[in-house]
């Protein structure tokens, strides 16, 4: 699969996403009406993405699991206050980001615990890893693991605001507008932070960049 197509699919707000948002609103209405079991459908739908956001912000898999659970608990407790002004996933992402940032403020110095595995079988990952190393098999997995640690270290050198912008834009594929809504800031601020963060990451990951 072409990498650019993947990027385009994640960055551009598609009609499918609008349909998803409508479906989310329907489920939220059910939960607000007292159907607690309906909230499980929202959990199943968004748990991986929420875990991804929290994990990329914290770079700690144990904290990420706990914070993801806390995010869904907070969403469940305050779902009656969700009025539908924004999409549900934007509202849920805001809760996740605020929960993760609050956790980072309380626990500044934490060691990194990356997720157990990197899915090197994905086409994008396979292409990138293959471009970075000529090895194969176990050596390639070891190299991917090392690269994963280096990425996390570089991310943790960013400030929380810059890390959030990079995570939401580059990894989760949200638009500037959506990031601005989640972070409660302007689009220009998001662009500025993103530019500055990428400069820092470029400097940190220079040995792994091939031009």
């Amino acid at each position, binding site marked *: 699969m072409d990498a650019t197509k993947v990027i385009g699919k994640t960055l551009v707000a598609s009609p499918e996403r609008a349909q998803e948002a409508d479906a989310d609103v329907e489920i939220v209405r059910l939960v607000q009406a007292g159907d607690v079991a309906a909230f499980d459908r929202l959990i199943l739908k968004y748990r991986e993405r929420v875990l991804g956001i929290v994990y990329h912000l914290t770079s700690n898999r144990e904290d990420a699991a706990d914070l*993801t659970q806390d995010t869904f608990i907070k969403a469940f407790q305050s779902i009656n206050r969700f009025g539908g002004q924004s999409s549900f996933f934007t509202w849920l992402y805001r809760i996740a980001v605020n929960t993760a940032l609050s956790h980072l403020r309380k626990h500044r110095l934490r060691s990194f615990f990356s*997720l157990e*595995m990197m*899915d090197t079988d994905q086409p994008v990952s396979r292409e*990138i890893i293959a471009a970075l190393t000529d090895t194969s098999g176990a050596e390639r997995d070891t190299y991917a693991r090392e690269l994963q640690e280096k*990425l996390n270290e570089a991310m943790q050198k960013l400030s929380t605001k810059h890390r959030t912008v*990079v995570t939401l834009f580059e990894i989760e594929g949200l638009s500037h507008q959506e990031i601005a809504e989640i972070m409660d800031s302007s689009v220009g601020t998001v662009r500025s932070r993103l530019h500055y963060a990428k400069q820092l990451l470029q400097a940190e990951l220079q040995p*792994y960049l091939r031009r």
Partner: protein
Amino acid sequence: MKSDRDKTTVTLEDLLRLKRAERPAPGFWPEFDRELRAKQLAALVVERPWWRTFPARAIAGVARYHLPMGASAILALTFLSVREYQTALTEAGLATPVLEFSTQPNLESAGGNVIEIASASDAAPDVRPVAAAAERSGLAIGEASAREEIRSVSAMAALIGGTEDSGATFRPPARSTSENFSAVQEIEALFGNRTLLAAASQGFESRVLPARQPVVDPLAQMKPPSDVRRARFMGTAFSTVASVKPVATRNSERLASRIADQRLYEAGVSRLGLGGDRLMVKF
């Protein structure tokens, strides 16, 4: 398009896209769902505020120690009961000598000579100047001795005058020992009888001893009219000298030493008076 570029070109966006490929371990999600379910159920239960659960917790905590607490309560109750009982016995033991002492002086006369003694409540104001002087001079007299003195004066007044001031309250201590001795000496000098003071001193010792003697009827100790005058002045000395405790006596002596002799003389004279065939002694 990356496919159109060199395969070896790796950009920052490519590296960040690698992070998207990170996945948790295979057994992660079942455990995640189980923990999330537990948290969700806990969030559904509204936690009661601590002030509602505190009484139940306090009772549960105390229930573990009910046996030692009960034993302690019984011991405390027993101790208080014994203490109250001993206090009552002590008060009863103190009251008896006062009554015995009060009957000693034979102050009533069968003849026409009658000693007019005011009741305790009437006698109390006479001692106020001395007590005030004691307070001014910084010589505090014990409260217990003052109460005992009032009690003895009241009992004596009840026996002699037939009236008892049951509502007698705490007053400052009665006249000082030195003042009373001075008054007696002046009376002795006036009447030329030097044996009064010695007799009073002997009687004082016998009365201070806490001998538990039965109460004697005052009428049985009546003396002939010839001894009325002597007994009258002895009673005056007894009522004040014997009722003052040693500590109060020392304080009163120090106080009296500071009072001018002229004042003592005037005070002693002012308490004695003659009216017809009667001798007036004020307390």
